[in-house]
């Protein structure tokens, strides 16, 4: 009951014309960056952060979260219509979604994904709103050792477990940690890695890091390939007929939506670098279930020919991560995706520290934010359900203007946040770093998580060691820390086994192919 009262107050704050406007701006921008391949909500929030610091924090966060949700709605449109995923979270949707579109069922595919994304967003936000007490109760039991374990979990999950190559992921992590260490050490006052440059005493600005890696790095990466051709423009499929789902479609989509929730909700709260993993897990499960059904003779396996479950489940899973990711961010101060990491930086810019105390000190903001997420989800459903084909027209914007505009925004934001030209030179260096990382497929998310959580991890580690008087065992005392470290070890072991198995399989395959070739040659 208490929650309903608080949420009611939140709705009253979120329904003011000003906050409604920010939510609308956010969902429109979010959908746009979601639709455009290569751009994502992380880049959008990074670019918005410096130019909005004059806004009231509630309005700014309503806009940021609306961008986050919008990105997860918009990404499926081009997946379905052009087989070009707007974001990595829509790769799984593209597989069956584009097949549906090729069979003339584009409208149904778009509707399935929009409704799925809506269900994911609303249910996950409701879970966070109604279980906020539980999250806070857990968070209040966290001491320095627990927070350090959580940071280690976030570091290793994004770099070693999720990344394609463990070494590259860990390199990204250590680059982020080194960037985070530049500046005056807050505990001892020692100047670290500043090379005597006064503007580095306060550390490398998080805005410069995020804008450089996400925006300028992406622009340089696209520039390095734009004249090298090969990017055959794929045809935009037309949508025909009503976007309404028939009863038969609904009967198949509803269970898949619900199963998608099952993957998305837990994964949003785990720092696994975003929503890709649950979408692939949801996709894989639907495929296996379909094969099972076919074997029992119930319904032929439609996977590969446009199965509606293959669109419904991944979209719901992707969108459901957004809500629980906001829960982990607000309640624990734990960023579980790149966008959430930038929002954590935004909270710090406004002098707020997400965590259990945020619900006490800034209760107005938190509940207005949660209420506006419901409102934003409804706006997104309206924007995406009938108008998805219109959004796809965004791809007609000439690329040169798009990237020139992004570059202009990047330098504008970095300059406006510091009024210092030195930050612009740093921006160029970080942009080159981002370009190099994209070129050699080193993931960017671990850098962001490390830059933002690095100072916290170091502080809590030193605090925990100081409390335990130098005893390393102090880091592993208590059920919560032991639990977290056990999960880390289990996840690393699981991935190591899976990697070894796939390596063995591909080696066996290569040998078989080589044998075949020699046979043919002989």
């Amino acid at each position, binding site marked *: 009951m208490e929650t309903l009262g608080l949420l009611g107050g939140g709705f009253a704050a979120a329904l003011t014309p000003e906050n409604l406007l920010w939510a609308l701006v956010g969902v429109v921008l979010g959908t746009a960056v979601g639709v455009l391949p290569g751009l994502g909500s992380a880049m959008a929030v990074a670019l918005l952060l410096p130019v909005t610091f*004059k806004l009231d924090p509630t309005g700014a966060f309503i806009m940021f979260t609306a961008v986050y949700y919008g990105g997860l709605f918009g990404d499926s449109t081009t997946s379905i219509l052009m087989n070009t*995923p707007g974001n990595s979270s829509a*790769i*799984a949707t*593209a*597989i069956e979604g584009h097949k549906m579109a090729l069979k003339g069922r584009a409208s149904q595919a778009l509707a399935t994904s929009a409704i799925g994304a809506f269900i994911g967003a609303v249910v996950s936000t409701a879970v966070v709103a109604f279980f906020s007490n539980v999250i806070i109760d857990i968070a209040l039991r966290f001491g320095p050792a627990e927070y350090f374990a959580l940071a280690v979990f976030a570091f290793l999950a994004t770099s070693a477990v*999720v990344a*394609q190559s463990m070494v590259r992921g*860990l*390199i990204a992590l*250590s680059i982020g940690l*080194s960037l985070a*260490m530049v500046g005056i050490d807050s*505990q*001892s*006052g*020692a100047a*670290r890695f500043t090379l005597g440059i006064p503007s580095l005493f306060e550390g490398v600005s998080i805005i410069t890091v995020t804008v450089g890696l996400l925006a300028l790095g992406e*622009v*340089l990466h696209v*520039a*390095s*390939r*734009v*004249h*090298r*051709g*090969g*990017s*055959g423009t794929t045809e935009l499929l037309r949508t025909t007929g009503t976007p309404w789902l028939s009863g038969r479609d609904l009967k198949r989509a509803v269970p898949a939506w619900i199963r998608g929730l099952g993957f998305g909700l837990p994964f949003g709260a785990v720092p696994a670098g975003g929503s*890709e*993993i649950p979408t*692939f*897990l949801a*996709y894989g499960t639907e*495929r296996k279930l379909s094969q099972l059904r076919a074997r029992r003779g119930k319904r032929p396996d439609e996977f590969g020919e446009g199965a509606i479950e293959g669109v419904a489940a991944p979209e719901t899973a992707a969108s459901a991560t957004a809500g629980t990711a906001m829960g982990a961010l607000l309640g624990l101060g734990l960023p579980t995706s790149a966008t959430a990491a930038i929002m954590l930086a935004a909270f710090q810019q406004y002098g707020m520290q997400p965590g259990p105390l945020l619900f006490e000190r800034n209760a107005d903001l938190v509940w207005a934010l949660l209420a506006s997420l419901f409102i934003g989800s409804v706006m997104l459903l309206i924007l995406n359900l009938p108008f998805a084909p219109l959004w796809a027209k965004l791809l007609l914007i*000439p*690329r*040169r*203007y798009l*990237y*020139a505009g992004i*570059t*202009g925004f990047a*330098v504008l934001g970095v*300059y406006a946040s510091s009024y210092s*030209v030195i930050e*612009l030179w740093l921006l160029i260096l970080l*942009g080159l770093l981002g*370009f190099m990382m*994209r*070129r*050699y*497929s*080193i993931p960017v998310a671990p850098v962001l998580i490390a830059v933002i959580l690095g100072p916290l991890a*170091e502080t809590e580690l*030193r605090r925990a060691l*100081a409390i335990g008087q130098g005893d390393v065992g102090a880091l592993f005392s208590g059920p919560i820390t032991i639990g977290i470290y056990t999960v880390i070890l289990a996840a690393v072991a699981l*991935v190591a086994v*899976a990697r070894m198995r796939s390596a063995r399989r591909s080696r066996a395959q290569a040998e078989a192919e080589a044998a075949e070739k020699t046979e043919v040659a002989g």
Partner: protein
Amino acid sequence: MSLSSTPAEPRGTDTGPRPARPARHWWRGRSEIFVGLLTIGIGLFLGEQTLTMHVPDNSASPGPQFFPSVVAVLMVVLGTALAVQVIRRPAPEPESGLADTETRAHDQAGAVGELVDGERPPAGAPATHSDWRTVGIVIGSVALFALLLQPVGWLLSGALLFFGVAWAFGDKRRPVFEAGVALVYSSVVQLAFVAGLGLKLPAGILGGVL
């Protein structure tokens, strides 16, 4: 990301003319060694700076040098591991279409691609050499902007930046039209963010007019 399959030339040959299709050089597909060396270099730099750091006397027992030394050692080890990995297994040639698609799929799916035995996601454009000329024009435009912003002001330097990047990305036929678009862009930004949101941007030489 699709870049693990990009065989790139070693640094230093970036701008010079080179034969259209050189014979397979040892460096082809191994340019990532540079990343490993860079990582080792940063690690050594961190280590050197940590050792010579001036530590205030009052600091508690795990002091400001503790965390940096851990990261420094980690970076040297990781850089070496990456270099060894690249030497033993260079990136595949772009021509081998199949291998390329496979790497790309793995890149996108990450570890999940291995855990979930799903269908391969669609492949995009084939990977090629980096186009250093275009990258250079973009970086040059940003650098020029950094030099010009304070003396000349946002309106002109921002327009020049937009023009430079748009020029690098494409259409070189209508410079006057493109310059007009660039000026419209910087004026709209000036109106929206300086007049609307209250950011302070240098007015520069147009300060009297605005």
